[in-house]
């Protein structure tokens, strides 16, 4: 499989010189990272010339806060609080900003990602004839209105996967025939899988006996609560996997 993956990666590099081909060793998973605005054309040639008959999955990712943690594990136990002060994933309400725990004890500021590196659309392709898999990723150039081209003209099955990514992340798929919400409620506001969307949600629903109908209200019945702090630890025992990591340049190489 590995020899196979290496030759296939070379094939891809030769065919798509402008793309980034990432091979995760030792398991031989290949990611093709394409420049903004090119993913439909590349997907088409992957289907027609490389035998990728099937689109298995399309998903959105929000890279906001990638690699941030809530405990600083490098400092000693002296003079360092075990409490969590930032508003990391799941720790804020509707209307509050997502922050990370900045180097203590200075203030807590909202997280900002590198422009054009926040949202990505990821497609997983499968070739039945060649028994190969490929991951395709395009970062959305604009963070305020993330958009990529729709793959529906190439694989009809992209339809619902793209609707889902639009619903949950707000990624617009240009050329999609029917880009409606799919999983959330009728009339839902916001994109719930974005990292700056609260885990507890924005509205809750209950039956109002006086008005004799179901009403929507801001969430009051639950408080944001996360049981376990987010911790990033370097574990030397996991060396085997270290070779697989790849800098996506999401944090400008700062981390």
């Amino acid at each position, binding site marked *: 499989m590995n020899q196979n993956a290496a030759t296939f990666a070379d094939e891809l590099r030769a065919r798509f010189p402008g793309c980034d081909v990432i091979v*995760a060793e030792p*398991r031989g*998973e290949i*990611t093709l990272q394409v420049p903004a605005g090119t993913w439909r054309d590349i997907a088409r040639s992957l289907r027609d010339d490389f035998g990728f*008959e*099937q*689109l*298995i*999955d399309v*998903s959105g*990712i*929000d890279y906001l806060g*990638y*690699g941030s*943690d809530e405990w600083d594990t490098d400092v000693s136990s002296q003079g360092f609080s075990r409490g969590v002060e930032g508003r990391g*994933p*799941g720790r804020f309400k509707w209307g509050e900003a997502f922050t990370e725990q900045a180097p203590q004890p200075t203030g807590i500021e909202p997280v900002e990602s590198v422009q054009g590196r926040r949202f990505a659309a*990821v497609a*997983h392709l499968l070739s*039945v004839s060649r*028994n190969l*898999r490929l*991951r395709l990723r395009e970062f959305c150039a604009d963070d305020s209105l993330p958009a990529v081209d729709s793959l529906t003209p190439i*694989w*009809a*099955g992209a*339809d*619902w*996967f793209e609707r*889902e990514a639009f619903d949950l992340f707000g990624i617009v798929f240009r050329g999609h025939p029917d880009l409606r*919400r*799919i*999983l*959330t*409620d009728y009339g839902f506001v916001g994109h*719930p*899988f974005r990292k700056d969307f609260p*885990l507890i949600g924005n509205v809750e629903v209950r039956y109002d006996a006086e008005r004799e109908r179901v009403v929507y209200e801001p969430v009051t019945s639950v408080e944001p609560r*996360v*049981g*376990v*702090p*987010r*911790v*990033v*630890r*370097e*574990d030397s*025992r*996991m060396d*085997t*996997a*270290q070779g*697989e*990591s*790849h800098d996506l340049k999401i944090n400008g190489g700062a981390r």
Partner: protein
Amino acid sequence: MSAPSLQNPPASTGFASNAAEARQEIRNYTLNFGPQHPAAHGVLRLILEMDGETIVRADPHVGLLHRGTEKLAESKPFNQSIGYMDRLDYVSMMCNEHAYVRAIETLLGIEAPERAQYIRTMFDEVTRILNHLMWIGSNALDLGAMAVFLYAFREREELMDVYEAVSGARMHAAYYRPGGVYRDLPDRMPQYRESKWHKGAKLKRFNEWREGSMLDYLQAFTEHFPARVDEYETLLTNNRIWKQRTVDIGIVTPEQAYAWGMTGAMLRGSGIAWDLRKKQPYAKYAEVDFDIPVGVNGDCYDRYLVRVAEMRQSNRIIQQCVKWLKANPGPVMLDNHKVTPPSREAMKDDMEALIHHFKLFSEGYSVPAGETYAAVEAPKGEFGCYLVSDGANKPFRCKLRAPGFAHLSSMDAIVKGHMLADVVAMIGTYDIVFGEVDR
């Protein structure tokens, strides 16, 4: 809406018997199907545009069971989300766990011990039979055959006892863990106790298979199961009504199957011999002998035949696993206590084991930064887990690829031109479970 003018009469004018009828415009009507409908398999809401009894357009509305599993997984350590996986496709529980656990193991660069892999293979197949029994029962019930449901649930009960014996839960097992399975197979199968209703010869018959270990019980099951499958086939395979409802209904061409991202029995029913267990083997599928059944026409009947044949193949795989597991005792969890908990005994007198246990169940383990896609051949098709880790003790993104979601999206393309009753046959043959479609 303007009234049809005389210059531009409606199409139906030619069939009108009087002037009033000629002015009537015949238009399609919209039918709301579900979400509270016994044939909707949960909470499917279909908006059907109908021309008489023929479907012109089908617009499935999903998401009524959306719980945000993937977002919830982002806020807790890796191990704490295994229980959520059971609740996705809640009739093939352990297969979902398998995909998630495999994704974590791939990122960590660890591999479960051989015995654990055989146990996983065996339970994946037990799960496949469980799922197909549920499917054959409910699909037949939808199409008017009541008895199959009762037969299928008899065997489901026997297999759920296996789930319970090994994990303590009949359905939501949370049995697979990164690094192996939670515990070894029990040496003793629980037995029925004497009661007012179970006594004497009846009690003896109930406990007949339960004298030995769980593997003995499973072996007894596999010896009897092929005859049970014959019973379902007697009820359905040559049944005239069953064939009228399924033959040439919902034909999926190989091109359509590719374009719509279909996997599993939906793909194999259309004649494409693709099975991850054979083509990209995981666990111990490379070591066991089985065949891939494929269909010819890609209609509901072929998919029925494929799934019935799959049950027989699963039975074969279970038999081989039982044989291996009986002969080869060994560890079922890795000894790496950064990922797997130490034994209870060790914790009582070993400080290090105690620390490991505390850290593992409070903070969890950090998974190296990276991303992976791990897929398993779940009973319904390819169930995949796309896991992105940024080096933390919680997943950064966990996208679950559910086969039912891709299948249901093709609904409009497949049922167009069919009759209303065929939509029910189609929902049945898709083998839809909303836990995984809505996630």
